[in-house]
């Protein structure tokens, strides 16, 4: 299978993802420059982390107007798999490919730490390899990760099981103490109704090999591979 990683001006986790896919997962991967206008021959597209357009105006607000984003939109409409990581998640929100928005972290700080994640939905192309009840340890690195959705939106997220990851403690308990950034319902990642678009603030590519302290992130990429190969 072949992954595509979109590089925006200011993306800085594109190579980390490239390394995780090529060297750890052992799959084919190519960069897609943000000025491209089509997505061809890719089984999954990654919008990586970073500071696209310097995070000016709002995180992801300018990147959503990059030419590639129209192609990403069409790709998702045809059922293509898209995963947005950190800044990639913020771009998906601004592009309205996922519902809600990001606010600045509750404590106003840039947070760079490993968090515990509870997988709330195993029935997605991105989480099917995650063992039940297993807590994932994956790092976050962001200042705008305080997920917000209004009262017209969040009940639908719950109803449709679109909440995929939530911040929890080591035992898997969801609490305010385990919520690093003030996110609504401790949300760390959500998917769309069709389950083919995922946004997550934690960085699975930074937790995909033992030398980095955790291999849990690899489960996300392995899930995608398993899903694609079954198609």
């Amino acid at each position, binding site marked *: 299978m072949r992954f595509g990683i979109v590089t925006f001006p200011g993306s800085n986790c594109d190579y980390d993802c490239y390394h995780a896919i090529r060297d750890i997962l052992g799959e084919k991967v190519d960069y897609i420059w943000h000025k491209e206008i089509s997505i061809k021959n890719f089984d999954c597209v990654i919008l990586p982390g970073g500071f696209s357009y310097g995070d000016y105006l709002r995180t992801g*607000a300018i990147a959503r107007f990059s030419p590639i984003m129209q192609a990403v939109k069409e790709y998702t409409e045809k059922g293509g798999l898209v995963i947005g990581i950190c800044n990639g998640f913020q771009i998906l929100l601004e592009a309205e490919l996922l519902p809600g*928005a990001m606010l600045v972290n509750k404590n106003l700080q840039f947070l760079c730490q490993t968090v515990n994640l509870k997988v709330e939905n195993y029935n997605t192309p991105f989480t099917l390899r995650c063992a039940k009840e297993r807590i994932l340890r994956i790092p976050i690195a962001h200042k705008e990760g305080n997920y917000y959705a209004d009262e017209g*939106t969040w009940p639908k997220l719950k109803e449709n099981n679109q909440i995929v990851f939530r911040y929890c403690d080591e035992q898997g308990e969801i609490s305010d103490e385990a919520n690093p950034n003030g996110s609504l319902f401790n949300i760390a990642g959500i998917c769309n109704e069709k389950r083919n678009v995922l946004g997550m603030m934690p960085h699975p590519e930074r937790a995909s090999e033992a030398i980095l302290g955790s291999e849990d992130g690899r489960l996300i990429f392995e899930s995608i591979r398993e899903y694609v190969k079954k198609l």
Partner: protein
Amino acid sequence: MFIANIYITLKEGVFDPQGTIIKHSLETLGFKEVSEVRMGKFVRLRLNHQNKEEAKKEVEQICKKVLTNPVIETYRFEIIDSLTF
């Protein structure tokens, strides 16, 4: 020539961490009469429109499409005749 002054704030009910911290700080400094703080953004545009109504329509579009995220933000603006930017 017109100038648009655009004020963007978080919607009512959306938690504003910056405003909250500023309010705490003001309290600490003794400004006890401040009961609420909302932090926002200010954007100024110089417009080449000849017609004020058309300028208004375009600024509305700009605010909706680019400058604000309607999920969390709201805006208001004024259009003034001015040469100084």
